[in-house]
């Protein structure tokens, strides 16, 4: 069993403070969801955990099995067991999806023990079929010209092939139709088990019908303001974020509200 602890995390981007002390602890075997209105710092949290260079941690720690990972470069964090399914994956022309995923797997293995092509292709084929992906997706250039839905599926494909300890899914449901949402959820659910934990970031409760979380966190104004079980997500869907804000007496302006 592994643990991921976020302690009093403060993060700024371009000099602007976004996260103002986030605390969260999770273990493998658990699925956590973070919900919150637009502009509240959910994506900042995921990029800061992963180590995007533009996000500056000004205070706090992120511990993986007790070790602070904030000093590690992004690739070492990944090999330590973190995975981020990104909202806007980069496109890399000329590099095929298959060769990239194989490279990512081999990066986790000793140099003289690369995964055999046969083995790799077998796993890839199986995983792609779980995700209803056509074979040609393996030979296309990484994310280049992928539709929104294809990109999301491709993130989950990588997740399933790489098998991280903790996966952060940053709005994996945005831009997906119901069928694609089910497929993506199927992939994540297949990963569920004692050696896998996931932090799901979403606006909507809908995704959580398919991937039922153990814990739901509500984030507002750069902090986690409320925690609960799956029923919390349902409550949010009914009452909106304004309801919970007012109940907690928070002085936070929601983006869509008029001044």
């Amino acid at each position, binding site marked *: 069993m592994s643990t991921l602890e976020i302690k009093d995390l403060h993060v700024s981007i371009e000099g602007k403070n976004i996260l103002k002390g986030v605390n969260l602890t999770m273990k493998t075997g658990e699925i956590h969801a973070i919900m919150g209105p637009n502009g509240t710092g959910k994506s900042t949290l995921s990029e800061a955990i*992963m*180590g*995007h*260079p533009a996000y500056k941690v000004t205070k706090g720690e992120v511990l993986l099995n007790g070790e602070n990972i904030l000093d590690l*470069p*992004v*690739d070492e*964090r*990944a*090999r330590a067991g973190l*995975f*981020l399914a*990104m909202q806007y*994956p*980069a*496109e*890399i*022309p*000329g*590099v095929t999806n298959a060769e*990239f995923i194989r*490279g*990512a797997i081999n*990066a*986790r293995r000793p140099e003289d023990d690369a995964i055999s092509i046969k083995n790799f292709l077998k796993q890839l084929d199986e995983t792609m079929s779980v995700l209803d992906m056509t074979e040609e997706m393996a030979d296309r*250039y*990484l994310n280049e010209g992928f539709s929104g839905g294809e990109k999301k599926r491709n993130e989950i494909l*990588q997740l399933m092939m*790489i098998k991280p300890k903790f996966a952060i899914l940053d709005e994996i449901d945005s831009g997906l139709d119901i069928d694609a949402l089910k497929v993506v959820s199927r992939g994540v659910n297949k990963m569920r088990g004692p050696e896998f934990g996931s932090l799901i970031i979403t606006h909507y409760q809908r995704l959580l019908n398919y991937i039922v979380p153990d814990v739901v966190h509500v984030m507002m104004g750069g902090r986690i303001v409320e925690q609960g079980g799956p029923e919390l997500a349902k409550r949010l869907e009914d009452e909106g974020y304004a309801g919970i804000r007012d109940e907690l007496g928070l002085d936070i302006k929601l983006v869509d509200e008029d001044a």
Partner: protein
Amino acid sequence: MADASMLGLGGEYKYGFKDDIQPILTTGEGLNEEIVRQISAAKNEPDWMLDFRLKSFRRYEQMEMPDFGPDLTTLDLNHINYFRRDSDKIARNWEDVPEDIKKTFDRLGVPEAERKYLAGSSAQYESEVVYHNMREDFEKLGIVFMDTDSAVQQYPELVKKYFGKLIPPSDNKFAALNSAVWSGGTFIYVPKGVRTEVPIQSYFRINAGNSGQFERTLIIVDEGASVNYVEGCTAPNYSEDSLHAAVVEVNVLKNAYCRYTTIQNWSDNVYSLETKRAQALENGTMEWVDGNLGSKVTMKYPSVYMNGEGARGTMLSIAFAGKDIVSDTGARMIHNAKNTSSSIVSKSLCKDGGRVDYRGKVRFGRTSDGSFSHVECDTIILDEKSASDTIPFNEIKNGNVSMEHEAKVSKISEEQLYYLMSRGITEEKATEMIIMGFVEPFTKELPMEYAVELNRLIEYQMEGSVG
């Protein structure tokens, strides 16, 4: 893949070995009219060729060095050995090639490649072709593939008709020089309607220090015929500077097709100043595939003159300039007839203080109604010591044409790097992946063994580039 090593691309310039070969004939350093005569006499040439050489030599003496591009002041033209002969006859069988030279080529892997992949191959060592063979079935089709010296003797009419026509000696100083002292090179004639799928390959190698290599290649693809020609170049490491000033003329006649693939990987003391030009007649297609990885200085702007209606010209190139390398290359597409089309895709990389420049031209002449050109130049500058200029000229003299031109210069994309690294791939490996992806449009057009070798070379170049 054993054949892959033939290109001499991989590793720590692994073809930097030098063979100690005593030449049978050499004209010594420097150049004068007497030497030009000597070269011609040594080849037992007809008078018209001697005249051509002498006229060219006079031209050469009058002409100025190029007024653009890299600095050539360190190139001492008086300190070059303009002609040497290492073997006294062209061998027909590999076994007949002199032992020392054979050893060199064995290290390069020429014969294996020939056996396995190629329609024919010819190997040039210093100034003359020493080994030459071709698969019989191609000979039966009437394809002529030989060194240009032999072609002057055996196909004088064809040579006379095309030699020096696309690139007259007056074109530039180095074309004039080549015209005066040329030796060796490849001659290909593909008769009407003959189409070959397998590449024909030639090989160039400069062995001795400060020796010039002035090969002269002439290709004629007759109506409806096609050919795919591949050449690779290597040179050992020397402290003295060598000069390579080739002239290549390709004639693609009506409905014909030619692809000409070059991988230049001279060592970093070679000046590679080449003139390559093709013409494509009615519905003919000329494709240049051009990779430049080595040389101290490269100046090369392969061109296609689209002289017949519906002709097509393309250029696909990569240039990688490492430490102390100046690569000044590009393509020229000259639209002289209706409904012609051209495309240029140029990918450039530089690092460790290398300089990689794109210098190109697209011209639409008065009579180029309905023509089209597309140009894309992308450059990645890998570190802050390196630099790159993109200098394209687009001249339009016809109102009914269209042209699109795009170029980008940047460092490695941080977003791409972050994405790959977020999957656990190291920075070094991720950088390499992005670079491989960047040049992929080029590598995918190469014959397999070249592609593999090219990737190996780039991997080598990229080593230690991070951190």
